């Protein structure tokens, strides 16, 4: 326990690291075990044109609609959606790709929106929870969550619903073990896992989910 005079160096962070560095470094290791992101990580785009650091005009395709916006290249898809497009269903919780609260579908695959740069999401088909059903209507997965009380505070719920959607699109009739594996990339703090297990199994049995991929 020593006493010393020391000026803090603003650029140096003791225990954290930059988001962009994390996204680059997460690679396959960070994605494995979550059941998410695997293909995304290996399909990182090759070096393209250099943009930034100031805001860049981009367009995103979200829930079938084209959205034009200006973002700095460092802005994540999650922050662009939440702060600029008022799409607040996806939540920012860990901001480090571990909790799944910001899960969306990109070209049909589940991704953590906090781990995708907005500029890298151009040209991809992005689906968020807002696009699952018209206001006032419930997608069968959301309905199954309600039926099985798979929510308490509800902050993780949109992420779980989207993770369940990604899972069921790929695997329409999962076993309980497959549900547990498929949702292992999401965290709930209120402890709704019992309801979640039942909800996903019920959603898998619902006619609309069985009827089509985009149900």
């Amino acid at each position, binding site marked *: 326990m020593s006493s010393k005079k020391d000026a803090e160096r603003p650029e140096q962070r003791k225990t954290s690291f930059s988001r962009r560095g994390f996204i680059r470094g997460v690679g396959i290791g960070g994605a494995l075990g979550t059941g998410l992101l695997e293909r995304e990580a290996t399909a990182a785009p090759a070096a393209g044109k250099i943009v930034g650091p100031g805001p860049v005009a981009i367009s995103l395709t979200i829930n079938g609609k084209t959205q034009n916006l200006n973002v700095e290249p460092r802005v994540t898809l999650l922050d662009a959606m939440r702060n600029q497009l008022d799409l607040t269903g996806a939540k920012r919780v*860990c901001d480090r790709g571990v909790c799944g609260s910001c899960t969306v579908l990109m070209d049909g695959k589940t991704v953590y929106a906090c781990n995708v740069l907005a500029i890298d999401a151009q040209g991809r088909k992005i689906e968020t929870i807002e696009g699952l059903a018209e206001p006032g209507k419930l997608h069968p997965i959301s309905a199954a969550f309600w039926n099985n009380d798979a929510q308490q505070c509800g902050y993780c719920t949109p992420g779980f619903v989207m993770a369940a959607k990604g899972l069921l699109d790929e695997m329409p009739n999962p076993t309980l073990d497959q549900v547990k594996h498929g949702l292992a990339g999401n965290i709930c703090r209120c402890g709704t896992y019992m309801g979640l297990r039942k909800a996903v199994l019920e959603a898998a049995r619902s006619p609309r989910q069985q009827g089509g991929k985009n149900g």
Partner: protein
Amino acid sequence: MANTPDYSWPPMEARKVIGQRVKRMDGPAKASGRARYSSDQNPKDLLFAIIKTCPYAHARVTDIDTSAAEKMNGVMAVHINAPKGTEIQWQGTEVATVAATTEDLARDAAAKIKVEYEVLPHLVKEEDLAAAGSHAKAAGERMQGDPDKGFQEAEAVSEGTYGIPMQSHVCLETHGEVAYWHGDQLDVWPSTQDVTRYAGSLSPNLKLPATSIKVEMDYIGGGFGSKFGPDAWGEVCAILSKKAGGRPVKLFLDRKTDQLIAGFRPSAFAHIKLGGKKDGTLTAWESKAWGSGGFPGGGSPPLPYILADLPNRQNYTSVSVNTAASRAWRAPNNQQASLLTCCAIEDFAAKIGMDPIEVFKKNLQYAPKARQETYAYQFDKAAELADWKKLWKPRGQNGPGPVKRGLGLGFNAWGGMGHNSNCRVTLHADGSVQVDIGTQDLGTGTRTVITQVAAETLGLPVSAIKLSIGSNALPPDAASGGSTTVGGVSSSTRKASVNALVKLFAAVAPALGAQPEDLEAVDGHIRVKGSPAKTLTWVAACKKIPAGGVISEMGVTDQRNPGNLMAAGAAGVQIADVSVDIETGVVKINRYVAVQDCGLIINPRLAESQVYGAVIMGISTALFEQRVFDQQTGAMLNPDMEFYKLAGIDDVGEIIVHMDIRPENDKRGVIGLGEPPAIGICAAVSNAVANAIGVRVPNIPMTPDHVLNALEGRTA
């Protein structure tokens, strides 16, 4: 003087809505992503605030220069939290806060603030009491009964050291608010467990009357005891809005800062000596406990837990460490007390070679009289559900293979008396019904419970009730903490609904040719008791309310005069069934049984969800959670969610919840449920691990290193 109406709950068999497994009223909003939390509020011209925090555990600010940040384009306001000369006592302390047009700009600006520190000596670890030096303060000895005589009479004495480190709440929505200071008015969207009193807490330092502060919150992303007042950052957020010329400001802590300064559960460690007879009767307890709630130090858990009348001598030492202050966490100090007590009892049972259930039951004489029978019943019920007789083996006799199965016990007690609450029920002439309470729904199902009580009382379906909560413009409620909400709001809603009905009956009675007191509200009708033919539909009855008028009645819950609608004193017993791989140290939950009483249950579906959730949170704590500090640097090593581990969907095994709703519990009225089932999990899991592997793993969490160290007889 008018007679007081009969507010008592309808008898169990007569209830139509209360007791039903009604689905969560806000379920569709949450499951469709349309529920708007305070952190989702995006008012026009919103600014984003970022806090620059201190990286040191103990330091003095010797200089701070915000000029570079203030000059940046897009930076609208800067506030210095810790001016030159401030002594900082924990890492993460707010030094300055910046509001800018984008979050990234605010972060850039915060990085440009230059702060110089004189770094001072720190202590960030408290597990080794001997190393705490002057940071430790003994609270003195306490004694009850005659422990010396008890130890003289003892035929066996067991000793052990047990502990639970600090854990973080990790509310998924971090702490914070959106504030909009326009003119003489402040609008706030906080994330709080106390909508009613938030304005009053903000008011003094902002020098703004509480009546000029509008507080609204529709949803909260977790609180667990850590989100009552506005906190310093809540005030700063409002100040920044004012400084920025009246633009709204969003300030929600980033995950790291939230982990560092927004609360945690205090640690507790104890060396415990238990004496007793060979038949299992305990005769004396002696404990030396210590722990920390951060810089302010800690307070002793209530020991011996539940068995408070066991003759005992105990002392407690509070350790002040250089971390932020702890906060209430779902049953403050009870998880700790249950762990320390139940582990000591199971170690005693192992010492005399007795089934621990028998030892617990043998000693219920030391528990509060009113709950003794309940615990006895619950131990048996839990044992039955866990298949204890078949699966439980004496400690360390769990087969030859590397994977050992074990069972262990924990128990809980909590008050849960309802808080003060005011409810207004308004009946309109068109038959619509509005219920207003300034409470909040933490995800516990408060909206649903209020709606069910109003529907039951008015003889209507839940769909006929329109409910407003989450605003300080509504009749005042109180903080949702200590499992007090359900008792408070169900009582006030019941009373307001009955009071409104009394008025409606008076308006309707002439049309039915009856006296008001002869009427009842059933199945959407107002009818004459005993003459079902004399009836009016609800809508027709409400038409008797004079045109343009309403019936609007209050119901008041006063904790000092609770009546027969609510009560205090919940009890529960839990059993963990685990498998431990003695080669890898990995602990897995096979099954977990929770038997819980909470009086009259308004919605069994939501009550079960509360217990599932409490148990899962506890399993997470027992297996994974610990705030890890580095004494060398004074830094927390896991202020995140990668290395501060939480249980996932596949980590919690199978959970069996049994609500103890026998009539003798039901007749006590409504008792809160948030806390009680959250107590006892660490105890049950620790005991199950000890039962499986034959040695005690002293400290939570049951991580592989802790388990392997215990197996190899290492102490750290």
